[in-house]
């Protein structure tokens, strides 16, 4: 096109557009007189204009963000495959597959010399930090269950590429095929289908017991090894790709959701449960529905819910009844059809309620259909044996994983460049793998934490929160994100001759930037000199402006003996578990520390606290332990009256034992004054406020404690306690669920859930929580069975009677707190017994009695003069 021609065209178009559409034809006929081609060109442009109203009006904005974020580097745009390249310590060998959930490579782990399957997650899955954390936690938890039918995860992490990081999952590499590939060869024999299904449901039952739902059971996610062993892949991964859960009555259709949700692949829809298709929350029964679809497909060679388009499939999932199993599957009995039908019920309530129920049904069928003695059934036997033996080691493993991976909700916070308000001091680690100097690591880390933690301008996570990051390969930023801090201090050491070389790094969590780095060489002999030099370097690096008093605190030495300090730190960490044997061991450590340094005030303070803790967990009557508590605390304060923790523990003593409520509050205030940024001190005051019924003050106080130590199960759990006493039962349940979600194996996490359900009168839920707690507390199978029988025969009342009898029997051989027993009597309606027990609790000065005025369970007793007298005796106003 010649420039003149273009100009002419452009001008004519503009002139035509300025005219009303009715006048345009006449205008063009005149203007283009004789030039028919030109007229037609303008006419077609005008027609295009009529259709162009919304054309490219929306900028490519959403796509731009994704494109930018997803592509790790400019170059990567044109090089989508990593084959032949090295990422971290992985040599990428071949692309095994790719899908909506990412690309999977066969890779060689060059460090450990083994082949792994490496899945790179698409960036769009990993933009939400909280989801990624959650997924990681679930994946690790499931993997730690160590079930033969669950794919083992080796590593989850991020790999740095030139301009960004990619999340990856490294798992064992399975030499076999996916069930999808297997099904390409046609439908399966009944025996084989049952065998595979039982293996899958075995994996599900273990995962469900750990509160983890797969959410995406489909043939692509099941690998079958050459020897027939099944591995279920990608637990919880589906959640990363899920839209927010909609309320049950939501009218937003799945189609809408699918059309806006990238990555919703048609294949998945066919295995989706109706509730998932509606966008509602998936639970264990949703997995069983998907498994039903799978079993149907294995036997019939086709899917029960089919359709030409995604929406047709969804419609079928939601409304259609599955067709009967066809002729080719003559072996299918009426029972089998019934089992599948039950799995595929539209309503969850009509399905098997747990994987175990389905296992029972399938096994009954299997023995009934006289499975021939083939290799398949032998595998089944091994699988069964494994199933029987997984439970205990798995629970122990799970507990270990949970100890190592306490996670709280992550909030991504932007930090202005120089503003470091919160800090996690990671445990000191050796620069290279090798023998570790535990004493040095423990001593220096805890000194840094204690010293920096005493500064007002800085919130420092306590040792109990960071001790789990001691692994040599810990990612410091991941730890920082988990702890919700602005920065992490990552210190490494290395022995160089008779010297120790320290490499210190301060990293900003938001973007991984190194804010400061330094090295320090020290003689190995003097651990105090090391600690002092480190503290000085670090405060310099943090660019803190310190007051004179703070400088003093920073140089403060709590003990003259390095060994005593280490004993103290160990004891302190043990106290955090609140288990009787640990508390007793902690007491030994504190006593040893004091023997080494009789001037060690902090050790006295914690010794006093440890004795008090023993009485709170019901090891012995408080009146036996109180004198020891008091003596230790007095000694602590005599040695150092500026110790915040000693004041806080003295406050607890005055509150719970002396019933000196005003005196207790003064001590709490004094402790807070001395150290406003200690989570323990804050929490102690929050407890006080709760027990005094001052909930409006207690809640913000405990929230502050939570900010100081966001991963502490105790603080989070105590939020539930406060909500319960404030009679906000729904909130207490909600909060308890959050805690349980993160710490499902912690018995005490269920305490306030149980009480809240009881007050709401929901016996079923209360008992379920009682059971869960017993399981978390590792109750014996006999005990669990006893509980269930008692509940089945007499409801919650039956269970309470059974529990009361058990405690009364136990009481014959050891001390049992009277408070709980009093409550059981009250709940059983035995008022006289309840009051008698309360009387004994008051005489023992059990901690429990300070809650008499706020405990909702006693509401019907409040007018009884005997109850009033007890409350008065404690010094509370009835």
């Amino acid at each position, binding site marked *: *096109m010649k*420039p003149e021609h*273009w100009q002419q065209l*452009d001008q004519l*178009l*503009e002139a035509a*557009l300025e005219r009303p559409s009715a006048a345009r034809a006449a205008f063009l006929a005149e203007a283009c007189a004789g030039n028919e081609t030109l007229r037609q060109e303008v006419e*077609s*442009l*005008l*027609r*295009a*204009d009529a*259709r*162009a109203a*919304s*054309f*490219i009006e*929306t*900028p*490519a*904005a*959403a*796509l*731009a*963000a*994704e*494109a*930018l*974020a*997803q*592509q790790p580097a*400019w170059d990567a*745009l*044109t090089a*989508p495959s990593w084959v032949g390249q090295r990422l971290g310590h992985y040599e990428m060998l071949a692309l095994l*597959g*790719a*899908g*909506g959930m990412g690309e999977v490579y066969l890779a060689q782990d060059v460090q450990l010399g083994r082949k792994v399957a490496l899945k790179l997650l698409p*960036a*769009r899955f990993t*933009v*939400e*930090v909280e989801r990624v954390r959650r997924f990681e936690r679930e994946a690790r938890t499931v993997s730690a269950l160590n079930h033969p039918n669950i794919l083992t995860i080796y590593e989850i992490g991020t790999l740095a590429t030139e*301009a*960004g990081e990619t999340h990856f999952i490294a798992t064992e590499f399975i030499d076999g095929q996916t069930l999808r590939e297997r099904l390409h060869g046609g439908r399966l024999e009944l025996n084989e289908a049952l065998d595979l299904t039982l293996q899958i449901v075995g994996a599900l039952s273990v995962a469900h017991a750990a509160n983890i739902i797969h959410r995406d059971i489909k043939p692509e996610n099941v690998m079958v090894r050459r020897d027939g062993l099944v591995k279920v892949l990608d637990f919880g991964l589906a959640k990363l790709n899920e*839209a*927010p859960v909609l309320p049950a009555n939501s009218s937003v259709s799945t189609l809408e959701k699918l*059309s*806006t*949700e*990238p*990555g*919703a*692949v048609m*294949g998945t829809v066919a295995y989706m449960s109706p509730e998932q298709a509606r966008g509602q929350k998936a639970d264990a029964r949703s997995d069983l529905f998907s498994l039903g679809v799978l079993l149907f497909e294995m036997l019939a060679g086709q899917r029960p819910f089919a359709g030409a388009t995604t929406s047709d499939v969804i419609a079928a999932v939601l409304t259609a009844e599955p067709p009967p199993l066809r002729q080719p599957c003559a072996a299918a009995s009426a029972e089998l059809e019934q089992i599948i039908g039950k799995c595929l019920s539209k309503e969850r309530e009509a399905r098997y309620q747990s994987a175990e129920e389905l296992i029972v049904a399938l096994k009954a069928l299997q023995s009934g259909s006289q499975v021939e003695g083939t290799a398949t059934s032998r595998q089944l036997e091994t699988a069964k044996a494994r199933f029987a033996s997984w439970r205990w080691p798995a629970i122990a493993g799970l507990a270990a994983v949970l100890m190592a991976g306490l996670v709280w909700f992550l909030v*991504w916070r*932007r930090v202005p460049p120089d503003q470091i308000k919160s800090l996690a001091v990671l445990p000191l680690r050796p620069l290279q793998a090798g023998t570790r100097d535990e004493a040095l690591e423990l001593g220096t880390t805890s000194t840094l934490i204690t010293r920096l933690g005493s500064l007002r301008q800085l919130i420092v996570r306590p040792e109990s929160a960071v001790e789990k990051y001691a692994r040599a390969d810990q990612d410091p930023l991941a730890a920082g994100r988990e702890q919700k801090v602005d920065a992490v201090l990552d210190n490494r050491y290395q022995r160089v001759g008779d010297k120790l070389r320290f490499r210190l790094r301060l990293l900003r969590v938001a*973007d991984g930037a190194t804010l400061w780095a330094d090295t320090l060489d020290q003689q190995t002999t003097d651990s105090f000199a090391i600690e002092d030099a480190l503290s000085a370097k670090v405060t310099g690096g943090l660019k803190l402006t310190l007051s004179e008093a703070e400088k003093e605190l920073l140089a403060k030495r709590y003990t003259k003996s390095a060994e005593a300090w280490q004993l103290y730190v160990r004891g302190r960490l043990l106290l955090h578990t609140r288990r009787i044997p640990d508390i007793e061991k902690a007491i030994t450590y504190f006593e040893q520390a004091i023997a080494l340094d009789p001037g060690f005030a902090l050790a006295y303070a914690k010794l006093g606290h440890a004795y008090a803790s023993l009485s709170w967990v019901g090891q012995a009557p408080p009146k036996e332990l109180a004198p020891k508590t008091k003596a230790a605390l007095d000694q602590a304060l005599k040695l150092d009256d500026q110790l915040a923790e000693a004041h806080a523990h003295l406050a607890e003593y005055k509150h719970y034992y002396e019933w000196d409520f005003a005196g207790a509050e003064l001590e709490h205030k004094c402790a807070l004054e001395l150290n406003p940024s200690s989570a323990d001190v804050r929490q102690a005051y929050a407890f006080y406020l709760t027990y005094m019924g001052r909930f409006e003050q207690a809640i913000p106080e405990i929230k502050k404690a939570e900010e100081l130590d966001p991963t502490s199960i105790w603080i989070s759990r105590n939020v539930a306690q406060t909500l319960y006493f404030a009679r906000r039962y729904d909130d207490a349940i909600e909060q308890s669920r959050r805690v349980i979600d993160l710490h499902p194996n912690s018995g005490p996490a269920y305490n306030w859930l149980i009480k809240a359900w009881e007050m709401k009168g929901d016996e079923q839920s209360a008992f379920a929580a009682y059971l869960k707690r017993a399981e978390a507390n590792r109750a014996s199978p006999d005990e669990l069975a006893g509980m269930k029988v008692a509940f089945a025969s007499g409801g919650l009342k039956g269970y309470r009677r059974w529990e009361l009898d058990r405690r009364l029997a136990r009481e014959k051989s050891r001390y049992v707190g009277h408070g709980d027993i009093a409550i059981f009597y009250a709940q059983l309606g035995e008022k006289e017994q309840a009051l008698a027990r309360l009387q004994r609790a008051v005489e023992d000065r059990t901690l429990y009695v300070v809650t008499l005025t706020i405990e909702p369970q006693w509401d019907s007793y409040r007018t009884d003069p005997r109850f009033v007298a007890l409350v008065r005796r404690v010094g509370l106003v009835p």
Partner: protein
Amino acid sequence: MTTPDSQEVSHLLAAWRAGDLTALERLTPLVYGELHQLAHRYMRRENDGHTLQTSALVNEAFVRLIEQPQINWQNRAHFFGVAAQMMRHILLDYARTRMRAKRGGGALQVSLDETALVTGVRAAELIALDDALNELATHDVRKSRLVELRFFGGLSNEEVAEVLGMSLRSVEREWRKAKAWLLHALSKDEPHEA
């Protein structure tokens, strides 16, 4: 990644404006790096259902790279020009990668067009649009830049007017004509379209 110094960015912009084409080459990785980081951060923060405004992203990248209290409008206009070009490049490569993946066949079930649906333009259409835009540039550079700034750079008409030194009225006129021309060019291949 090294943090570009703001003087360096200003200097490169000025050099580019003065006709030094190598300045653009040196500027590109700096701007890309910043945009990439910002996009990452936005995607992390955004909830489902929110989309990131490209112009906001570009604006923030500019402010961060230049770090000057007194914003030089000339610089800003040029910066937007660089960013829009870059965005076009990134999006096109992205679309092509996706198309390749789609053609890659059975094993690769990468969900392609669902993502692109958000913008109303599918990967394939994006590539065709780019071709048409290149053709448009041979006739009318100004229109092609306008489309680049609006569609790929996410700028409003007012911003485009500022960047191209045109009146708002002219921007509106030119935009309408450019759209008509592009849509016409795109429809030519489709037999059922008139």
